[in-house]
Each structure stands twice: as C-alpha cells, then as structure tokens.
C-alpha cells in the first residue's frame, strides 16, 4: 500500500524571500526600481546613458555583466552613480547578488534605480530581484521577430523599449509587428520606440516610468 500525503503547499523559487525583502526595502526608501532585460548589444547601456542627463542626481544604476566594469564606467561618465556586478558565469542577476551589491552601494538621495541585467532575453525573465517593473529592451537590428520568439520576456515586462530606431531606414524591420507580438503576450505592454542617438522617445519613456512610480506611491 502506498501512502499519499496531500500537501497542497506553495513552493517559492529559491531566493524569492530575498527579492521580497529587497522590494520592501526599496519601497520603504521611496525608490522605484526598473529591471532592464534584453539581449547583448540591444542598447540597454546606451539607453541609460541617454537618459542620464534627465535623471542626474536622483537615479543610480546597478550593472550586471559576466566580466568587465566597462558599463559602470560608461554610466559614471554619463553622470550617474553606478555599481558593477560581475556574474562570471551566471546568465542572469539574482536577488542575492543585488543584496550583496547594496551592502557596498548606498542608495541615499535617489528615487529611481535602474538595474541593467546580464545581456540575455531568456533567463533574466525568470527571476525577481526586488524590482517594481521589468522593461524589455529590443533593438531594431535584432530583427522584428524577437518579441514573438521570446514570449516570456514580453509576458513578464510592463514595458518594451524598441531601440536604435534611427537605423530603420537601413533595415527591413517591421516595428508594428514587434508591437503586435508583444501585445499578444502582454495586452497592456507599453511600447516605446527610441533612439539613444537622436533622443527620440526618451522623454515619453521617462515620463511613463515616473508616472508608474507616482502611482505606486
């Protein structure tokens, strides 16, 4: 006779309690946290550099990369405080890494924190790291099929930033298709078409983030 234990018990992913703790801490301090996820080279760092002048003095950035602190240096040159996490081999940031980073990176005086995840449109979608929202970053040079091919990234994201639209004249990329495919996964996803080079779309994107931060309170 086999014996069956009816458990009906929730299981949380390892690390969820750290993510909850971080989320509480950010809330307490009035910091709105945006977790940027996107492929290597999608333009996440350039987007932040372009936003930097508008949020100087009130925003900071945590950078995630396997190696180098080049992104941290770029952000600092753009005028924001930055901290670099090197994951060495890991394909995404986890909440434990963010907690460790905060021990060395004080957040006084800011109300906005961008966390640039490791370049990867798959794994970062599966992890909470204490953020308020995830924003997916997809460039037009990657091809208009990416939202359809990476549905989970769309599904967990509150916003989609399409980058490098200044290059559209040179490409066959249907931005409307990207919007359609993203909306199919996430009906209310806010889509921003941007260019870090020309500044297109940046004001709208930032205004949207600030609106969400105010709504959160």
């Amino acid at each position, binding site marked *: 006779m086999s014996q069956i*234990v009816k*458990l009906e018990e929730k299981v949380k992913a390892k690390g969820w309690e750290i993510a909850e703790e971080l989320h509480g801490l950010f809330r307490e301090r009035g910091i709105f946290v945006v977790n940027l996820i996107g492929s290597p080279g999608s333009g996440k760092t350039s987007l932040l550099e372009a936003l930097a002048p508008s949020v100087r003095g009130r925003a900071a950035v945590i950078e995630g990369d396997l190696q180098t602190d080049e992104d941290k240096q770029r952000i600092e040159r753009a005028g924001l405080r930055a901290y670099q996490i090197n994951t060495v081999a890991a394909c995404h940031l986890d909440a434990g890494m963010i907690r460790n980073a905060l021990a060395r990176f004080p957040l006084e005086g800011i109300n906005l924190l961008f966390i640039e995840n490791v370049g990867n449109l798959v794994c970062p979608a599966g992890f909470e790291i204490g953020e308020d929202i995830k924003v997916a970053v997809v460039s037009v040079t990657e091809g208009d099929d990416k939202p359809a091919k990476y549905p989970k990234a769309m599904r967990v994201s509150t916003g989609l930033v399409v980058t490098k639209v200044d290059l559209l004249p040179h490409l066959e990329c249907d931005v409307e298709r990207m919007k359609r495919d993203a909306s199919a996964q996430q009906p209310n996803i806010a889509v921003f078409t941007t260019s870090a080079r020309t500044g297109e779309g940046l004001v709208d994107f930032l205004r949207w983030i600030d609106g969400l931060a105010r709504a959160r309170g």
Partner: protein
Amino acid sequence: MHELSFATQILDRVQQEARNFPRSKVTRVRLSAGELLCIENASLTFCLEAIAAGTVMENAEIEIAEVPLELECAQCGRTPVASALEPHCPRCGEIGTLVAGTDLIIEEIEFNEPDSEA
C-alpha cells in the same frame, strides 16, 4: 532556467516530509504549476530528476499539471485572463484579484510501502 531554483525548494520540502516515512521512498510527486511562473515542465522534471539522484526522491515519478491564470471579479466570478499585469476583469472592467495560475504548488507526495522495493 529558473526551474532549478524551484526544484531545489521542492526537493527540500519532499525530504522534510520524508522524515515522517523513514522506511519508505518517494514514488511520485504531483505538482501544479501556475501559468504566471512560465515554468517549462520538461525543464523542471529534468532538474528534479537530476538533483534527486541519491536522495529519497530518486526515481520518483514527477507529475506537473499546468494551471491557467484566473481573475476573480466581484460581479463576474472567475474569468481566465491573459496577463497577471492587467488587474481588470475582461468582461466588466472592474479590478479583480488573481486567484489561480500564480503559484507552484506541491499537491501530493506518494511514498511506497515501508521497506518494500523502491
């Protein structure tokens, strides 16, 4: 990829329960996975089998049921919804509460007869 972080928590919980059945092995674990978590069943099964080697859960059958997202609305009752980030009822537009599809649940753990062949 995040399946492994769920798998380790499941194994922990199963091992904890197994202490109540010291002469049995786990033969089956029945799970239900909420749509929101985007868990890949094959990947979760693979992770569980991999980390179960040498434990009381080794060779246990893993069953994973998929649970779609559902919103509970005061007017319309339970309704399937496409996204957890949209809190409004698709029928009447009122704000509702997600009541299904958001969690990974260990439904049942089955142990074999004490001291029988695992």
